[in-house]
């Protein structure tokens, strides 16, 4: 059974990708859980779909865009979504959890509009909605490795800041830590690791 992993590249890729994601996802996830933002990953993956749909819609008009991977547009959208979530969390101080469902449902709504504008549900989009670990290619694996290195390095360097912010944002900002910057930075990290899920 084990020897097939040495025979087939796709199995090796799947194994390595699985191990790496299994390594960094909980490491970042724990910060989300203590901040009570567990669903942010779901919200950002929906807004990623919006970005992908937006790209496919644009590609129908501007053929040049077909050359690029629509996931990048998805990432841009997710970063914007992350920024909006941070802003909404500030606006609804007492109902911070509202920020996530707003982006989640808003993202899906927009995605549906873009999909219809792009003339319906095509197979391309289908592939992005339901990724498969067995389909991880060498290029995907490289991206995953790079992201893992970035995430682990940042986590070691900025562990204490994130730890403090997760525990008590107000106190962290009093002690001179730039909470805004860090929250965004961490959202960006969660986002990058999320990209692996799509891969």
């Amino acid at each position, binding site marked *: 059974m084990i020897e097939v992993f040495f025979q087939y590249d796709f199995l090796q890729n799947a194994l390595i990708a699985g191990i790496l994601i299994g390594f960094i996802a909980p490491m970042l996830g724990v910060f989300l859980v203590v901040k*009570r933002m567990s669903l942010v990953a779901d919200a950002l993956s929906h807004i990623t779909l919006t970005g992908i749909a937006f790209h496919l819609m644009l590609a129908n008009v501007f053929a040049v865009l077909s050359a690029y991977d629509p996931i990048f547009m998805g990432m841009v959208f997710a970063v914007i979504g992350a920024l909006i979530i941070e802003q909404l969390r500030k606006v609804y101080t007492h109902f911070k959890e509202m920020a996530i469902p707003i982006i989640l449902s808003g993202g899906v709504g927009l995605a549906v509009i873009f999909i219809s504008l792009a003339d319906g549900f095509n197979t391309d989009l289908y592939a992005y909605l339901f990724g498969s670990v067995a389909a991880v290619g060498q290029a995907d694996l490289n991206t995953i490795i790079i992201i893992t290195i970035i995430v682990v390095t940042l986590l070691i360097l900025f562990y204490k800041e994130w730890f403090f912010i997760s*525990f*008590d944002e*107000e*106190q*962290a900002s*009093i*002690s001179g830590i730039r909470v805004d910057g860090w929250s965004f930075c961490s959202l960006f990290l969660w986002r990058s690791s999320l990209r692996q899920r799509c891969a």
Partner: protein
Amino acid sequence: MSSIIEVNNLTYQYTDIPVLENLNLSIERGSFLGLVGPNGSGKSTLIKCILGLAKPQAGTLSMFGSEINRFSEWGRIGYVSQRANRFNAGFPATVFEVVSMGLFGQVGLFRFIKKKDRNKVYDALQTVGMENFAKQPIGKLSGGQQQRVLIARALVSEPELLILDEPTVGIDAVSARKFYDLLGQLNREKGLTLLLVSHDVGTMTKYVTDVACLNKTIHFHGTAHDFEADKNLSTLYGYDVQQIIHEHEEIAK
């Protein structure tokens, strides 16, 4: 004596009605100031302004001689918030880790906690008598113990000013008295300047050196002795109310 905090004509409003209006206050180095005032008098708002969490609409506020917007040495100020137990009780942090957070601002980016910092954490825990709990998860401690840990966190960066916003809420009378003793001791022995917000006027005035009465603006700022002597004022700010409660306790005994 030089003043650590200078507030001039400060006005702050959340809506059209100002919470703080033309407020003037100066806190001298080495003083132990009790800030009293009824609910909604703007005590917490004033603290927020001092901590830079709220931007006043008018007036000036300077800390350690520099304008609040340009002030950056937050390590010189320790703060213990009103809702001490606001954090998630399941948060996976030990007492040691919570106290070391107080050093993060000073340690700075790209640096790690060193041996010297660890010793500081243990010293701070010792000051509040919690050194035996260092390895315990913070959520497992009682409210009073958590409060002590949070004070240790505020003390670990060796601040010159410690701000406490109603620190004895939800703490029993005996623990509260011990707590005030500790604050008095820090004030006398380490020369720490303290700003204490409390409703417990009767008990507090026995420990503080100065009292300031706040309701939109500062109505009185003087020594604790003068405050007690001024019957009108102390009645207005609840001093006598506490006295009556004490008498009841004695009858009950």
